């Protein structure tokens, strides 16, 4: 797994999907379950903060686009 600082949103989501399918399959080593959950928690927090930040930026830019004067 990449460290939190250089992982992309898509990589984080892909990793989450893998963790989810492992847990869903039910064959996860119990010793690893808590570390997987902790990793998932960290990934979710990372994704949430990326999403929130991008959402803020996007909203700001959309407002700017909408407020633009007619193209000339």
């Amino acid at each position, binding site marked *: 797994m990449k460290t939190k600082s250089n992982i992309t949103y898509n990589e984080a989501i892909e990793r989450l999907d893998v963790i*989810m399918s492992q*847990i*869903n399959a039910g064959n996860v080593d119990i010793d690893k*379950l808590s570390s997987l959950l902790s990793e998932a928690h960290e990934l979710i927090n990372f994704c949430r903060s990326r*999403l929130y930040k991008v959402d803020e930026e996007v909203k700001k830019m959309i407002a700017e686009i909408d407020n633009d004067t*007619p193209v*000339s």
Partner: protein
Amino acid sequence: MNNNEPLSLYALNNIVRNVLAENMPARYWVVAELSEVRETAAGHCYIELVQRDEDTNEMLAKARGTIWSRVYTLLRPYFLQQTGQPFAVGLKVLLQVTIGFHELYGFALDVCDVEPSYTIGDMARKRQLIINRLVDEGVINLNRELPFPQLPQRIAVISSSFAAGYGDFCHQLQNNPYGFVFYPHLFSSPMQGAKVEQGIIDALNSIAANIDCWDLVVIIRGGGATSELSCFDTYDLANNCAQFPLPIVTGIGHQRDDTVLDIVAHTRAKTPTAAAELLIHTMAQQAAIIDDFKQKVVSAVVNRMESARMHLSSTVRQLPVAAKLCLQKHYHRLELFEAEVKAASPRRILSLGYSLTTCNGVVVRSVDDVEPGAEVVTHIADGKFTSTINNSIKHENKE
């Protein structure tokens, strides 16, 4: 009449006058080209008519003529209204004349009437010849095939600097409702009379010198249907325009059929104002495309964000459930193990009434393991007791 006696010049001219008057008293319809038209202060018009050889252009015949003011005051506006041309040099005309000869002024035709439809036909024929030539040379569509600029902002305008048309054009551009910016620049040229052809060609050459500075050329002129248009029906002008590397828009303000210039131009607008409208409309179309992109980009971004949000929140919802389920499965598996272990426990078997016998601490599995007199310990569910072996019987049928 005595041929031997010399005549005075007057007498000779007088004879000619009388002969002509007696022998050619009728009115004749004559076809000729106007080579000179001179209006006098008194309202008369003196003309010169010529006939040239069709092929060599050599002068074949020539005659002076007079249109007296009583005729000319009617003929002049009638001709203009019918042909769209002033009664001027260069036109081919069909005139009704009487033949006159004056002792002092000589031979002159006295114009009584004009047939404008002949001139119209002749102009159309000449136009058609020019068009045919442009078609034959493969140039007639060249300008029209150029791509029209998507943002026609840098406009090289060919017009007369004092004509109202240029003012109308700029006014229309500057006051467009969208606030588009245009950069018209005037290349001055006469827009009436014989100097039009060379003037426009010179202007085109000036534009071509800095071709990268311009998006298109607009040729405009104010004025209505009565203005002279034959100056736009020349081969050299049409050929230059057709082969010009920038699209040309015309707005030379007339109602009749297209001039040859209009035909070769990329786009014909009726008036300078209409030409400006065309450019504004082209800009507006591009603005609409950009606005459309704006909408599409915004909604695509909004959709992507929404799907990312939904995916993440569904993961957040599912993760604890999945983790709990996973734990439960492990618990369940442990329980099953536990039950199996329990089922295998000796205590449970003893409680069912079975017993376990040991001899010297070793589990007795066969009668061969004990001798009569040996002491054995029997374990049952709630305790144990000691016994001494009296005898032992081995089942014969058991292996």
